[in-house]
């Protein structure tokens, strides 16, 4: 049911959209996300995008991991 991999939004038509990852396309619904734009990345669960992933937040996420690793030295 759950796709942990974010899909890139490549088409939007109202609340219907198409998401893509590694060349595989899926029809998705974007009812739960405000302001989706082409090129955004979303997490999809049972055909519905449940959240948009911002690049900035992902970088912050990696920083968090690095911080803990650095403290180990």
């Amino acid at each position, binding site marked *: 049911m759950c796709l942990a991999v974010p899909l890139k939004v490549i088409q939007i038509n109202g609340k219907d959209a198409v998401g893509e990852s590694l060349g595989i396309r899926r029809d998705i619904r974007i009812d739960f996300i405000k302001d989706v734009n082409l090129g955004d990345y979303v*997490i999809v669960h049972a055909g519905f995008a449940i959240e948009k992933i911002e690049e900035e937040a992902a970088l912050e996420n990696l920083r968090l991991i690095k911080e803990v690793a650095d403290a180990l030295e």
Partner: protein
Amino acid sequence: MLWNEFKKPKDIEKILSALTKYDKEIRIMEICGTHTVSIAKSGIKGILPKNIKLISGPGCPVCVTPTERIDDILFLSKNKDVLIATYGDMIRVTGSIDGTSLEKRKAEGFDIRVVYSPLDAVKIAQCCKDKEVVFIGIGFETTAPSTAIAIERAINEGVNNFSVFSLHKMVEPVLRKLINMNDFNIDGFLCPGNVAVIIGEEGFRFLEIEFKIPSVICGFEAGDIIYSIYRLIQMRENKDFKLENEYIRAVKQKGNEIARNIMNKYFEPCDDIWRGIGWIENSGLKLKDEYIQYDAVKKFNLDLNPYKNNDFCSCGEVIKGKIDPRECKLFSTVCTIENPKGPCMVSSEGACAAAYKYSD
């Protein structure tokens, strides 16, 4: 691609090697079935020392559905006017009579369809006007909003031959139940990232405030999981019992309000039964009275089976984290992926399926 870095972040080796040196026993429960699968697939269990125990919890929706409700669905599926639309994971789960499943019913000629989204079920209802389409709504807070959207679509488009058999459940009540059991012995929780996307960090705050159990909301890549396990150990070592959010790229403090609002518009909490556990107060989601005509249980006047707790297998113990799948006497002898006996083997997110497929 940035997202792939979480599979193996540059810095994870250092954290992993610190973990392999940890020598105290710690018992960590991953609540979510998707975590169970990621852990098994990535081989994390094999790399970690045996004293770091990863235990699967009650987070596979198919597995926590009791046999009684499977029987109810199987009963409904024999109604010639009914077409059952369900996610694929449900169709091989057997009821109390060995061997009966939706898959069997389909082979017997009853109309059972696998759908990927609840909206597909509404579409089927629009095409097959001579059938009553019943969607089996299953899953935690992550999927309940999607079921709500399907009901809304049916209302807006005047689709009257569509209803939902709701098996939807919520995570907080079952965690409270587990924690309050006398033999509860979990030192830290890996909290389900996908549920947290909807209910937010705040949805898991009670673990910190009321129970002081180290907990990390965790993403689904190997890097996320290794980092989170390390943080749980650090919290325990420093006696700093709190809730952290590792999955900040997806989980907001307050979660997804749009999804929660639509879920709360159509559903309300109800007492519900869980496999191997029994009744848990306000742990399920049922349709509100105003939407009764979309509630399959009311529409077909179903007399739901009372809770009997006569499960023939050990799935209940697996769900509660009391036994490892390999400790079930049916595991890999009688119960296999090819011929599963219990839902924990049927479901792709089940702990037994993960242990069977990825065992070394």
